[in-house]
């Protein structure tokens, strides 16, 4: 089965800085998704990363705070900008490996960010 790799796996960041998280898939996928899991909470969809067009953001998430790139069909980045302690979360990318729609979704290992 395909491998979904995220970098960094964890990081400790200072307030006011920005951090970019990478998601690499070893096969081409049409859609990639970014989720956030705040401490003790469930997962919430941030945005859909579309190749060749701007990301589509869910309610409550904006591009200035979470800019996303999708330069090709195997790679995406999520940047968490101007971080505050409230941004301390696990950030996960998700892909539909079958690429056929209404398919099973798989997740990367997650990137655990702590903001001091």
């Amino acid at each position: 089965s395909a491998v979904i790799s995220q970098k960094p796996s964890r990081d400790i960041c200072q307030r006011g800085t920005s951090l970019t998280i990478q998601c690499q898939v070893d096969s081409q996928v049409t859609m990639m998704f970014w989720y956030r899991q705040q401490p003790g909470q469930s997962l919430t969809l941030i945005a859909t990363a579309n190749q060749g067009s701007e990301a589509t953001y869910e309610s409550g998430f904006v591009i200035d705070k979470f800019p996303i790139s999708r330069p090709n069909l195997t790679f995406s980045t999520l940047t968490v900008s101007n971080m505050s302690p409230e941004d301390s979360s696990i950030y996960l990318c998700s892909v539909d490996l079958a690429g056929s729609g209404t398919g099973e979704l798989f997740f990367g290992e997650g990137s655990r960010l702590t903001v001091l």
Partner: protein
Amino acid sequence: GIQVEQSPPDLILQEGANSTLRCNFSDSVNNLQWFHQNPWGQLINLFYIPSGTKQNGRLSATTVATERYSLLYISSSQTTDSGVYFCAVELRDSWGKLQFGAGTQVVVTP
């Protein structure tokens, strides 16, 4: 929006016990998945089950789409089953977008 409710929120089991986790959802969905989140935060796919019954070892799941619920069965639990179990549904006309329940925290004691 759609509501996804999981019960119970917490479960403590003795090793070897059986248990049932429930997921109710408030609207029609394209599909439903069950995940296990291990202590390191990684989400492990358990079942992709929009309807019917599936089994994988000691785990099985049943989704009754017409009645909008799904059940996850854990039999002969082991300490490695500890973690958080999430169900997530894909909404109609929302390809790939999952709405997660709040999860069930399971602790299996030796």
